[in-house]
C-alpha cells in the first residue's frame, strides 16, 4: 500500500507541470489582457494610451509567453505564487489564504447537506422502487441535474430575499455583524449553500438509489431474508453498509466539482471565497491569480483522487493496490 501511495505521489510533479503549461498557454492565449479588463470600454478613449502601454510593460506583458512562463515557474519554485494585478502588493498566497475559510465553509456545508439529503432520498427511492414517491423523486432529480446552479441561485434570491425578504440577498454577514460564526452568518449561508447543494443532491440520490437496488438484488440479501432476519436489520446491517461503498468514491470526486461550482455561486451571492476570487480573476485576466487558482484546483483534484483510493481500501478490505 505504501508503495502504491509513493508511486502516486511521484506522479504528481510531472502531472502538475504539464497542467501548468497547458493552463498558462490557455490563459495567456485567451483574447484580451489585464490592462483592457481594468478599463471601462465605454471610457477607453478617454485614457492616455501611453499610460496603458507603460502599464503593460510594468506587468511584463510585453514579454513573450514562454519567458513569462519560465519567470512564473521560477517564482513558484521558490514558493511565491506572485502578486495579483488588481491592486498593488496583494500577495496571492495571502489572498487565497484569506479566502479559503469562506470557500471551505460553503463547499463543506453544501457537501454535507447534499450527501445527507441525497443519500437519504436515494435510499427511500430504492426501497420504494416504482412507487409514486420514487417517480416523483426521480423526476425532481432529473430537474436538479439538468438546471444550471445559477438559475436556482437567482430564483432563490428573487423569491426568498427580494420578494419575501426572509433571507439576505448576498454577502457573508450583515455589515457590523461580522463577528465570526453567528446566526447572521447562518442566515447568509442558506441561499448559497442551498443553491450549491441542490445540484449535487440529485446526483447523490441517483447514485444511492442504484447502489441500494444493486445490493438488494444480491445473493446474500436473499440468504438473509431466507434466514428470517427482519427487514430493518437486513437494511441496516447488509444493505446500507454495502451500498455506501461506491458513494465514498463519489464524495471524494465531488469535492473539486463543488469548488468549481462555487465560482458562480460565490459571485452571485458576493460570497468572499476562492470561487469569487477566481471568477473575478478570469474576468479581469488576472493571470497570476488565475494560475494560482488553477494550480490549487489541480492539486486538490489529485489529492482528492488519492484520498478516495486510500479510503476505498479502508472501507472495503477486499481491495488491495499492488
Amino acid at each position: 500500500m505504501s508503495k502504491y501511495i509513493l508511486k502516486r505521489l511521484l506522479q504528481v510533479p510531472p502531472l502538475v507541470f504539464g497542467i501548468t503549461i497547458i493552463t498558462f498557454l490557455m490563459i495567456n492565449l485567451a483574447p484580451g489582457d489585464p490592462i483592457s479588463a481594468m478599463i471601462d470600454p465605454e471610457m477607453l478613449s478617454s485614457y492616455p494610451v501611453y499610460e496603458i502601454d507603460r502599464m503593460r510593460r510594468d506587468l511584463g506583458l510585453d514579454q513573450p509567453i514562454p519567458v513569462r512562463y519560465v519567470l512564473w515557474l521560477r517564482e513558484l519554485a521558490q514558493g511565491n505564487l506572485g502578486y495579483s494585478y488588481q491592486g498593488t502588493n496583494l500577495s496571492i498566497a495571502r489572498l487565497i489564504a484569506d479566502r479559503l475559510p469562506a470557500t471551505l465553509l460553503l463547499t463543506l456545508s453544501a457537501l454535507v447537506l447534499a450527501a445527507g439529503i441525497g443519500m437519504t432520498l436515494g435510499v427511500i427511492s430504492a426501497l420504494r422502487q416504482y412507487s409514486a414517491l420514487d417517480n416523483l423523486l426521480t423526476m425532481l432529480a432529473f430537474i436538479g441535474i439538468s438546471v444550471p446552479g445559477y438559475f436556482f441561485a437567482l430564483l432563490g434570491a428573487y423569491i426568498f430575499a427580494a420578494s419575501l425578504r426572509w433571507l439576505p440577498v448576498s454577502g457573508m454577514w450583515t455589515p457590523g455583524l461580522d463577528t465570526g460564526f453567528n446566526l447572521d452568518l447562518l442566515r447568509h449561508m442558506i441561499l448559497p449553500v442551498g443553491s450549491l447543494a441542490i445540484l449535487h443532491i440529485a446526483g447523490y440520490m441517483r447514485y444511492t438509489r442504484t447502489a441500494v437496488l444493486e445490493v438488494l438484488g444480491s445473493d446474500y440479501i436473499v440468504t438473509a431474508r431466507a434466514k428470517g432476519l427482519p427487514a430493518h436489520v437486513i437494511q441496516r446491517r447488509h444493505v446500507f453498509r454495502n451500498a455506501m461503498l461506491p458513494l465514498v468514491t463519489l464524495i471524494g470526486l465531488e469535492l473539486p466539482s463543488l469548488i468549481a461550482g462555487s465560482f458562480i455561486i460565490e459571485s452571485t451571492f458576493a460570497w468572499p471565497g476562492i470561487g469569487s476570487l477566481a471568477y473575478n480573476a478570469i474576468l479581469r485576466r488576472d493571470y497570476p491569480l488565475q494560475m494560482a487558482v488553477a494550480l490549487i484546483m489541480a492539486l486538490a483534484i489529485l489529492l482528492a483522487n488519492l484520498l478516495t483510493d486510500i479510503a476505498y481500501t479502508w472501507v472495503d478490505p477486499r481491495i488491495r493496490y499492488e
Partner: protein
Amino acid sequence: MASQLSRRKFLQGSAAATGSALLAATPLGALRTVMAQGDEPVRGGTLTISGAVTPQNMYIPQRMNTFGVLQQIDSMFLRLVYGKAWSEGMEPPTSASVELGVAETMQEIEKNRVWEFTLRENVRWHDGQPVTADDVIFGAWLSLNRRLPVEVSAPKPNAVLGAVRLLEEGSDTVGVEGITKLGDYAVRIELERPTPGYWEQFYNAIYPMPRHVLADNPAKAFEPPFGTMPLGNGAFKPVRYVDEQYIELEANDDFYLGRPYVDRLIFRVFPAGDGNWLALEAGEVDGFFAGIPDDNYRRYTQLPSVVGVQMPLASPHGFKINVSRFPDQYVGLHQAALYAIDVPFLSNTYYGGALNPHNYNFIHSYGLETPPAGYPTYSYDPDRAREILAGIHWDTNRVLDWLVWFQPWEFHEAIAAMLNEVGIQTNFVRVDGAAITQALYEDSDFDFIYTSTYGGSDMRQMWAQFRCGATTQNGGSNNNGYCNPELDALWEDALNETDEERWKEKFNQVALMMGENPPMATWMSPNVAHVWNRRVRGAHPFQHFQPIRPALERVWLAP
C-alpha cells in the same frame, strides 16, 4: 422592406408603454419630486450604497482604477477644486466654472496657465491636522510619481509643469516643478502651456494627501487596504473594511461644511450586477450607480420605493464605420446613419426624453460648446439616408459586423432596426470586456461600432482619436483608420495657438472640416443613472463620471 418596417413599428409599440412610465421616473422630474418633499432633515441612520467594485482598489485616490469608486473616494477625500462641466438641467454649459474644494480662493495669474490658490484653514485631516500647501504638493507628487504604483486611471495633473518628467522618470524627492508653496495655506500652480478649461476636467484633479502621515514611507499609501485607516479629509472617515464585502465609514464631526446628517455610510460590494437590483428591492441597499439606463433600470424605477436619477455624460456617442474597410464609402455611411436615426424617438422611448441630441464632437470642450456657423446638422430623414447610400453605391445586402462588448438591449435593437430600414444591415458580434481593447484598438476588428469618445477640453487627447495613424502603438486611439492630413495640419496649428480668440477660430475651422468629412457619426451624449430608495432625501449624491463633488453631507434618511 415590409418586414423591416413592421419590426420598427413593433419596437415603437412595445416601447411606448414603458416610455410613459419612464418619463415619470426619470431624471430631473423624479429628482424634483423627491427634493420637493419639504420634510425637515433627520439626523442619524446608515446610508448604504452598493457597487460592483471591490473597495480594495480605492483606498486612496491614487489607487482609483475605475470611475465606479469615485463616490467612495470623494466621500473620504476632497479635491483642490472641482470642475462643473454641466450647468443646471440637461443643457451643456455656456461657460465653464469651478467649484472650490480645499481651495478657498482661486486667482488666475496668467490666462489658462498659472493660478494661485489659498486654502481653507478649517479643512482638517482625520486626525485633526489642517490640510496645508504641503499636502497639495504631496498629493500631486504622489499622483504623478512613476516610482509609485499609481493606477493608470487615477486622476493626475498631467499638464502641470514638470509632470511629464515625474510620469516618465519618477522622483524620490517630494515636489512638482509647477506647484510652488506660497505659504502654509497658499500654492501657485503653473501648467506647461495654456490649457483652456483645465480645471473642469476630472482627470486633472489634485487630491491633497496627508504628508505628515505618509511622507516617511509614501509607498505605505499603496499597501493592502486600509493599513493606515482612517485617512482622509472628506465628509466621512473609513473605520472598517471587510474584504470583498463592504467598507464602513462614519460621519466626520470636523468636516468643514458641518457634520453629515447620516451617522454611517456603507459601501457594499455586489460583484454580480443583478445582486444590486435585488438588494435595492429587498431594501438592503439605498442606492447605486446604474450606468446607462437599461431594462433593469426601467423595471425597477417603476417600483414605488425606487427613484431613478439620470445625469448627462460629457462624452459624445455615435457610430464609427471602419474607414480602412470602406475607404470610399465611409463618409456616406456616416451621413446616412445620422439621417437614419430617429433621435427624439430613441430619447423619448429609452431615456425619458433626456438625451442630449447633437452631432458635434466639441460640445463638451470648454470655449467650443457652440458649433460654428455652417456646421452640418442632421435630423431623422430615412429617404435622405437612402439617397446618400444610393449615391455611394451601397450594397444593401451587405451585413456589417457591429462589434459590442455589452449585452445589447431594446435601445440597440431599435437602432439596428432604423439602420436596417434605410439599407444598412448590421449583425451584433459580442466580445468579452477584457478583449475589447485588442478588438477595438489593436486589431480594429469591426465594420461598425456604437461608441463613446473623449469629449473633454484636452484637445490634444481628442486629436489622438482622429489623427492619421494615431494608434495605441504611438499614443493614439484612432481605431477606425480615419485619416485627413489637412485636418491634422489645421489641428496641430490650433493646438499651438496661445491666443484664446484665435485658438477658438482655428478649432472652429477644425470642426467645420470634421463636419464635411466626419470621422464618426456622432449623434448624442447619453445619460447615466443612479437609483435610490425613496427614503434617501436631501440630495442625490450622484457623481459617477461627473467632475463634481457628491454632497453626501446633505443626505438624510426619512424614518
